[in-house]
């Protein structure tokens, strides 16, 4: 579909293309910070440079005075580059403060970006991080002291097929992280890496998260079917045979539950029991009103749990 850009994005893009005064296109000679970040996905690269007003004694108090970019990329990549430079210059940030600028800040500045274009803002934040790292080396600042985890991602991983569009997560990165962190389910991936936490389309898409998991670990036997040895052992002693379980529930219904329900003008009929699920049919006045039906169900379930097995669950059919 044609990209739906905000007016802000289009304005910044047009200004940059026309080279209007106040735009930030260009590259600074002998810059204090230099960073480049490319993403083959959108076919774009951002070369970002900045100059600081050096603090005489404490380099961590340098102030960014000038920021420039050269961008090979689409409308939104160029607008995001403009946004980055404008934001840094306007707010007189120190390079260390600049590290706090996230891609979300750029998106906000641009009044939003189309979902598929979020990675353009990520590119801006990444290039900035690298430029700050460069400045830190030049000015003898130990960045690890300020931010423990600033190792820029392996360059190869920025490129490659994007699996999760919402958070712009690539296949090589996912493959490495799935192994490194021992991720075994989509939920684990989403918790650890955000990937798959947005529109969820990538979960079971061809080449999506489930496929990467299956390719890494092999197709997993369904864990639902297997009790772990420990829990199996814990239940082994108490486990009733299906016949005995049925008898006990039947007896409980006949002796305790049904007489109670009858007193309220209701009745209960046992339909089936399997996998710790007790299927019952409720009849009488309780089936007329939803709230009463729910209350009756909860009470019956409570009694069955208490007297027979606390893993049992009642399903009204």
């Amino acid at each position: 579909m044609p990209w739906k850009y905000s007016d802000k994005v289009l304005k910044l893009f047009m200004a940059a293309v026309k080279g209007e005064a106040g735009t930030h296109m260009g590259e600074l000679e002998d810059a204090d910070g230099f960073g480049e970040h490319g993403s083959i996905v959108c076919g774009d690269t951002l070369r970002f440079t900045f100059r600081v007003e050096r603090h005489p004694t404490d380099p961590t108090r340098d102030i960014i005075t000038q920021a420039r970019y050269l961008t090979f990329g689409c409308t939104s990549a160029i607008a995001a580059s403009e946004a980055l430079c404008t934001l840094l210059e306007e707010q007189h940030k120190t390079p260390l403060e600049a590290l706090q600028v996230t891609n979300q800040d750029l998106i906000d500045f641009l009044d939003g970006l189309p979902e598929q274009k979020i990675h353009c803002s990520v590119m801006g934040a990444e290039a900035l991080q690298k430029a700050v790292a460069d400045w830190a080396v030049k000015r003898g600042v130990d960045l690890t002291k300020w931010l423990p985890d600033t190792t820029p991602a392996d360059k190869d991983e920025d490129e490659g097929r994007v699996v999760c569009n919402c958070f712009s997560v690539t296949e090589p990165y996912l493959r490495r992280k799935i192994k490194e962190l021992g991720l075994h389910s989509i939920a684990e991936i989403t918790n650890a890496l955000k990937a798959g936490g947005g529109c969820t389309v990538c979960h079971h898409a061809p080449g999506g998260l489930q496929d990467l998991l299956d390719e890494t670990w092999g197709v997993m036997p369904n864990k639902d079917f297997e009790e772990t040895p420990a829990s199996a052992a814990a239940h082994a002693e108490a486990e009733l045979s299906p016949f005995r379980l049925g008898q006990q529930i039947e007896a409980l219904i006949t002796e305790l539950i049904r007489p109670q329900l009858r007193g309220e003008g209701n009745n209960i009929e046992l339909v089936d029991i399997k996998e710790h699920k007790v299927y019952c049919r409720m009849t009488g006045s309780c089936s007329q009103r939803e709230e009463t039906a729910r209350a009756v169900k909860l009470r019956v379930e409570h009694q069955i749990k208490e007297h027979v097995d606390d893993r049992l669950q009642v399903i009204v059919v």
Partner: protein
Amino acid sequence: MKTVYADNNATTAIAPEVLEVMQPYFTVDYFNPSSMYAAARSASDAIENARASIAQSLGGIDPDQILFTGSATESNNAALFGTVQANPDRRQLITTAVEHPSVLEIGKELERRGHDVTFLGVDRNGELVRDDYVRALRRDTLMVSIMMANNETGVCFPVAELARIAKETDSRIVVHTDATQAVGKLPVNLQTDLQHVDLLAFSGHKIHAPKGVGALFVRRGTRWRPFILGGHQEKGRRAGTENVPYIVGLAKACELAVAGVAEEQNRVRSLRDRLQQTLIELIPAVEVNGKDAEVRLPNTLNLAIHGIEGEAILYELSRHGICASSGSACTSGTLDPSHVLKAMQVPFSAIHGSLRFSLSRYNNEADIEWIIAVLPDIIARIRKISPYWDDKRNCLKL
């Protein structure tokens, strides 16, 4: 001669309002919605607006969950094959013996490929037996696919309840429903009643949109894989350049259909009831299939006419300008009588004489009176020829 169209469960006339909103997308805004130039914007906007409108019509759900397809048959194929592929660790599917062939035949194909498929039978009313359903659920149940309303008899299944029971049993069971005959005739709300349904299929041409467009609802987070690959359209979930005018038409038709549910439930139902009541009175040895079902579509009347063959009736009706259909063997491509009526154990003396009238908002009282005027006589004349009809005593002779 006037045509009385009473075969709306087969297809429907395109509503003038629908045709009107489709027009610009053939000749003016004909662009490929994936193109980058500004002109294509109107085409891609039209699709997104259609998606939002349908999402609104189905209970105000998130539009992202609606995919456009080429037909309800494609939607059903995508729903079943897509779910099976995404859940390779599970083996059993539950469906019914009275589904539309686009579910039933996939069930049989999956059986050939090694899955266990339970085809639930129906009782004499055409209804499912709740206990059979409960007993069919297993620890390796992969999906449940049960239609909302039967196209032949109009009998409705309590899909909302069945979906709840499946999810309470095991949240990983994927629940699909073929809602092709339900949209526009019954309330279909994916936010409230049908909150446990994961996949829902329907098409345009049963609700006064053109043939060749359908939709599939895929609830966010459902374990489902795309069925048609080869393009980024619909976020990669259904490849192929979008059929913009038809999608626009589908959304308009859906809007009108949902707004028309009340009319369907009142005016159309009273037309159907008048037809049913009068025909039963005027014609001996005739039954209404699905008459005692708890819920039946308000527009559908399926008659079992003892002692004669349905195709002959259709031919005679057609000579009088009346369009209806039959479950008789002669009218099916396979020369096999209706699987739905067989499953309902309609007596063999009547299964070949089944006759279906299905109405729409474009039918009026004059249509009904015309059917009432000609049908009893047609049946009497054909029965005269039948060896199974005792004309003197006016009853079945076996």
